[in-house]
């Protein structure tokens, strides 16, 4: 429904936690050690279930996450995982076309779905008395699709229009959220156009939709998460009642998603006939998820890109006036927690034709270099920890429980440990100035980065095609 991403890189809500260890003058240590209740178990059919109560508002957020993202869609069918996500709204055993949406909305709820690198999710926020209704409906579509050629043709039209509005008819369409992974990665799974070529989207067949469902949409490949106003015993009974009878399936082996270590800087140009100003993006390969360096990169991202005091903002915006903002983050289609595989930390600017791209890169390097050459200023590191904690709480409070649900589901799906949400604080707390420097030296190497230089082009010269190697 909602697609895989949109336009300009958003200021990503970073959802890391850390304890503030008060070195700065203004800050006092927090008395709030915010703790999330987590109840985690598995049904015999393999469905992982996460429950987290919060009675603040009379609503519940329900999320079903399947461990199938666009990385591992079929090779000749780019964009298929996303097209398939749309099909999950087209009909199931007991709900015909549009009836799922009608059911949720007529019960006072909202819903959506999205396709990401390593999962596809479906979620609802409803008044808490409607929990049973939504669980029934999600179980119904986990049990089986009931879609036809007409539904598929309709959604191929809708998805085609989605790609047009977000990429083909959009200035900076696909920049850099599609362009960077394609340019920086070398393994096809990480490097293909995941929104999809229109010809691939149009070529999809109904039997492929059915096969995809049979392969990946099974309880043993999914996590069900419920956050909000419910009673645990009641919720467990309902989960058992509606999901307990769904059969598990034999899952295929996960392909090799690893990326070779990048040793040489890649510079790629893109002509964008719709863009009025040049733009530049950089992407650095991330350390493996959940390593010490990974947590250090979370703090580095805060220092470089996030907040009013970000080093890149100070250098490029305030000091040199090269641009009005530096946007970016870890995982442009999510956050540093909700993926499982190779990932980039990205930064992006729009600038003026009078400025050379080399100047932008040189200014970025000026902001980055001190992190690599000396121990970080403790006050700046403190501010990074505070920003992390603040954005973590924002995430948890986001959108009717959606943000917390997403964290819990990701940790269950990728780590089999949703209670990790309460341990992040300690992980970030362990990061030392020495580790920041060591991580910056290795991961902020120019050889570890990919640069995309976007140049406005005459209308006739090019289409909004993905970036090409120089």
């Amino acid at each position: 429904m909602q697609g895989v991403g949109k336009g300009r890189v958003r200021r990503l809500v970073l959802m890391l936690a850390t304890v503030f260890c008060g070195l700065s003058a203004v800050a006092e240590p927090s008395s709030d050690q915010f703790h999330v209740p987590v109840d985690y178990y598995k049904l015999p059919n393999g469905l992982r279930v996460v429950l987290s109560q919060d009675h603040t508002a009379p609503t519940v957020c329900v999320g079903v996450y399947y461990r199938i993202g666009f990385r591992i869609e079929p090779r000749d069918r780019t964009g298929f995982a996303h097209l398939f996500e749309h099909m999950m709204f087209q009909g199931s055993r007991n709900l015909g076309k549009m009836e799922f949406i009608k059911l949720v909305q007529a019960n006072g709820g909202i819903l959506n779905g999205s396709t990401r690198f390593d999962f596809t999710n479906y979620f609802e926020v409803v008044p808490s008395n409607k929990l049973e209704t939504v669980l029934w409906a999600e179980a119904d579509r986990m049990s089986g699709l009931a879609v036809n050629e007409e539904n598929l043709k309709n959604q191929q039209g809708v998805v085609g229009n989605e790609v047009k509005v977000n990429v083909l008819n959009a200035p900076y369409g696909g920049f850099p959220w599609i362009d960077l992974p394609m340019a920086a990665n070398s393994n096809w799974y990480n490097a293909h156009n995941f929104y999809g070529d229109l010809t691939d989207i149009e070529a999809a067949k109904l039997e492929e939709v059915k096969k995809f469902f049979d392969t990946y949409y099974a309880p043993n490949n999914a996590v069900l998460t419920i956050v909000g106003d419910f009673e645990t015993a009641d919720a467990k009974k309902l989960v058992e009642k509606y999901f307990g009878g769904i059969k598990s399936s034999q899952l295929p082996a996960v392909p090799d998603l690893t990326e070779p270590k990048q040793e040489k800087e890649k510079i790629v140009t893109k002509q964008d006939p719709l863009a009025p100003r040049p733009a530049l993006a950089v992407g650095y390969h991330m350390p493996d998820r959940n390593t010490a360096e990974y947590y250090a990169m979370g703090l580095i991202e805060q220092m470089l890109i996030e907040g009013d005091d970000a080093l890149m903002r100070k250098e490029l915006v305030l000091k040199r006036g090269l641009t009005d903002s530096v946007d970016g983050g870890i995982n442009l289609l999510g956050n540093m927690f909700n993926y499982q595989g190779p990932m980039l930390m990205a930064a992006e600017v729009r600038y003026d034709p009078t400025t050379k791209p080399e100047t932008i890169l040189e200014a970025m390097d000026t902001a980055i270099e001190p992190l690599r050459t000396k121990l970080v200023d403790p006050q700046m590191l403190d501010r990074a920890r505070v920003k992390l904690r603040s954005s973590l709480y924002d995430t948890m409070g986001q959108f009717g429980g959606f943000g917390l649900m997403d964290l819990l589901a990701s940790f269950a799906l990728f780590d089999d440990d949703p209670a990790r949400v309460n341990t992040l604080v300690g992980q970030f707390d362990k990061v030392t100035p020495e580790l920041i420097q060591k991580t910056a030296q290795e991961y902020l190497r120019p050889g570890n980065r990919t640069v995309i230089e976007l140049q406005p082009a005459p209308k006739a010269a090019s289409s909004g095609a993905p970036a090409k190697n120089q």
Partner: protein
Amino acid sequence: MKTITRNASWLVLVAGLIAVAPAHAQKQTPPEGGPAKAFAVPANETYTLGNGMKVTLVPYGIIPKVTVSAAIDAGSVNEGSDHVGVSGLTADLMKEGTQSLTSEQLADATAKMGSTLDVAANADQTIAQLDVLSEFGPQAVKLLADVLQHPRLPESELERLKNDALRQIAVRSSRPQTIAQMKFRKILYGDHPYGTVLPTEADIKKIALQDVKNYFDGNFGAQRTHLYVAGKFDVAAVKKAIAESFNGWGKGAPRVEKLASPKAQRVLDVTDRPGAPQSTLVVGLPVPPPTSPDAIPLGVTNALLGGSFNSRITANIREQKGYTYSPRSEISRRYHDAYWAESADVTTQYTGASLKEIFGEIERLKSEAPPATELKGIQNYISGLFIIQNSSRGALISQLQYVDFQGLGENYLKTYVAKVNAVTPADVQKMTGQYIKPDEMTIVVVGDKSKITDQLTPYQKGN
């Protein structure tokens, strides 16, 4: 994250739905769930300082954060025709330090509290806010007070910010949706400030620091400001900080009303975008303002007609025809002013067909009252949405601020759901016929003229 919320928020803002269709005999009926729980909008405390500044405090939730947000009645409506763009530039300059803090010190101070400083001007107001960890509530109040009362407005940063503004204007006005919006507003509002979505390059270039200072002095002050604090915070300490840091602020100049008189007229305006694979449409007309007794029934009508995923227009041109991805209708509001508009980016070859379906759905609703079950679904949806709209500190501030700014009264939120549910099918039919009149709609199209001119011929004039 934002990628999710951006589209998800579409679903929140938009309303709608058709009731559940009767299940086929062999199909299971969805379980109804339990009885609805009572919901009341969280209580707030509102008071006025001696200088006229209003304060609203809303203790809410368990998440250890607090938002401190000031709404000042100073927007582009207050610029004057010789100084278009000065409201936005003033907002930008307000982030460049205070008399006691340099720009960099201010940046470090907000980061230390886990926040950014946001200052932004819209048509009617400037919103300045900090969103901090709970323990910094009182400090955030003091810092925001400093920004509002003692901004440095440094000459040294003016040229940089003007250049930034020029770049932002160029980038924004390259989007077909923005172009369509600019055209639509201009046709409806003419020379009124609501007719201007973005300043021109010439507007920005001629702004001098003195213009910023004049605008700031003439429009910022206690009596035009409402401060909202929502979230988890120490109420006594925050109140004390408010008294200490805002009591000394001058009243400032009183607010001047400048009501708009938008035109309802059939105009077909086409902007050429050669090679565009889609046509960007905005179709609409002025409707009664938020203060009208018809505003709520009209809102329900909009939700059913085009304002939600499952509304009639969306079901038609997206889910049946596949002409478009994200069509939506909305009632867009400014001070005692509103218009209704349907927006959609449609496949070029279906430009005319999309307009035909949009107008067809309007005519259908005008000629026949919707089934009661369909309307009930919409009413349930809006009622459920209302809980979500009052269940986070940011959403609560938005709701309260809207009610205060439009002067809807303290009963508005208390009676809103009852009023929504009192709307009848006949009311919806009547609202459609009375206000959503295709013949008086402005139609703006941004697309490939060579491919759409013929398709648009039937829409040159209303009947």
